[in-house]
């Protein structure tokens, strides 16, 4: 910061004037290159020989209007499922990550189970987990079987819990051992050290990759429709089958992007804040 009564030197004035000219020039260059690229794209797409046909079968405004209500009601299922599965997977991931850090021979089976879980569910394709749970488990014909939607949600939580557990574990391991030494030297137990010193720092550090996985989960929740429930993509598929027009897919795609924007914005904001915090001070 310069003091209020500071008079800039001749050289500083020249530098400032030069930087202002450079800024104006940069804006002009950016604007013209963007306009040139945009024009080129529009000409290339609309000038293509099959453009009219593609526009009719993918971008029909009337069909889009007709398909919107069913696709939207499908999307509502995605949103609800996402909210439940994200919370479930984050909790499961955190618990698994903490279990994997437990020491001592008593906890060997717990550690082994937790490690086995992350290996299995990170390796197993989500679709197979979904089929096993939504088709296989009801086949057992047990009493009080939860509905297919819940089973599908469990499949998503199990699969994403495996990924999130590894993200949490990376965060826990990134907390320097000197922090543990400081906490233990104060007489805190291992559990208190985890709860008050390690986990708060670990979670803050891995918040951006965690949210990134939630964004990925948002797209995968739609896969429960393989087992019957109608989500946005399935609704679009049904609408497409009725009209022989692909516009409903485009509608669903646009809605998914709109849904992702706030999540991605939050992720970027958290990442930026974490970066600032680390470099600041």
């Amino acid at each position, binding site marked *: 910061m310069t003091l209020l009564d500071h008079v800039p030197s001749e050289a500083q004035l020249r530098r400032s004037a030069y930087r202002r000219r450079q800024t104006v020039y940069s804006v002009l260059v950016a604007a013209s290159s963007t306009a040139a690229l945009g024009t080129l794209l529009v000409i290339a797409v609309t000038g293509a020989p099959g453009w009219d046909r593609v526009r009719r079968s993918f971008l029909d405004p009337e069909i889009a209007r007709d398909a919107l209500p069913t696709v939207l009601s499908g999307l509502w299922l995605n949103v609800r499922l996402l909210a439940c599965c994200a919370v479930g997977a984050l909790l499961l991931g955190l618990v698994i990550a903490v279990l994997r850090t437990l020491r001592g021979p008593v906890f060997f089976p717990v550690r082994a189970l937790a490690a086995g879980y992350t290996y299995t569910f990170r390796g197993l394709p989500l679709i197979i987990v979904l089929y096993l749970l939504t088709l296989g488990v009801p086949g057992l014909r047990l009493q009080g079987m939860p509905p297919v939607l819940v089973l599908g949600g469990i499949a998503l939580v199990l699969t994403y819990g495996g990924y999130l557990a590894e993200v949490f574990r990376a965060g826990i391991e990134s907390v320097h051992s000197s922090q543990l030494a*400081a906490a233990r030297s104060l007489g805190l137990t291992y559990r208190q050290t985890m709860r008050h010193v390690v986990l708060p720092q670990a979670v803050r550090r891995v918040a951006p990759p965690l949210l990134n996985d939630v964004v990925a989960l948002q797209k995968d929740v739609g896969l429960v429709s393989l087992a019957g429930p109608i989500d946005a993509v399935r609704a679009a598929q049904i609408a497409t089958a009725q009209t022989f027009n692909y516009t409903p897919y485009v509608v669903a795609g646009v809605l998914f992007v709109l849904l992702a924007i706030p999540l991605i914005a939050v992720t970027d904001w958290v990442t930026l804040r974490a970066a600032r915090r680390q470099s600041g001070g």
Partner: protein
Amino acid sequence: MALLRCRGLRKEFGGHAVLDHLDLTVAEHQVVALIGASGSGKSTLLRCVNLLEELDDGTIELDGEDISDPRVDPDRVRRRIGMVFQAYNLFPHLSVLDNITLAPRRVHRRGRAEAEAQARELLDRVGLGAKADAYPDRLSGGQQQRVAIVRALANSPRLMLLDEVTSALDPELVGEVLAMIRDLKADGMTMVLATHEMGFAREVADEVCFLDAGRVIESGPPEQVLGEPTQPRTRQFLRRIIEAGRL
């Protein structure tokens, strides 16, 4: 009566003995300074006393109790010992006040109001009352280290272990931390401090121990060990320190 008695301590790292049959006795209200080159075992000794490292041989007694017995609960032992580290090791996600009250609240189960009142009083006494709500990364190194000392004191320890607490500080910040240790001595705190500040060791220590290759080679009053050392290794070490302008 000896508050701390270490006998025949041995600690190995990768087949190399960092502590090698080390003996050390510290009486109540006594200040013992550990000096010696890097790698001579000063930090390892302090970490072993605080049970942060597992011994490979020997016994440590605190208040007559064998704390090196594996059946002893280390958390219970550490509550009686305060430790301050070279790199401060404050918790970056907690404010100064929360750093200090964490152990009193979670370990000693004191109420928030009581713990905070005690923390504020301790901070006021060292002139950091205005920093209670700041986060560690907003403080200078000297301020951080003083907060770390206050954090250790908030547990009302019987013994303080100070591991090169001024080594990471800019020269002009060393004085404020040393002044605080001087006050602790005046209050009668028992302390073992590893240090490279020979002038300070001479001033504040009742006994200076020169460590070399994991053993106490020479110990006694500071005037004797620093002024008229009898062991050639001690003389050689002090000569190097003088050449580096640190005495």
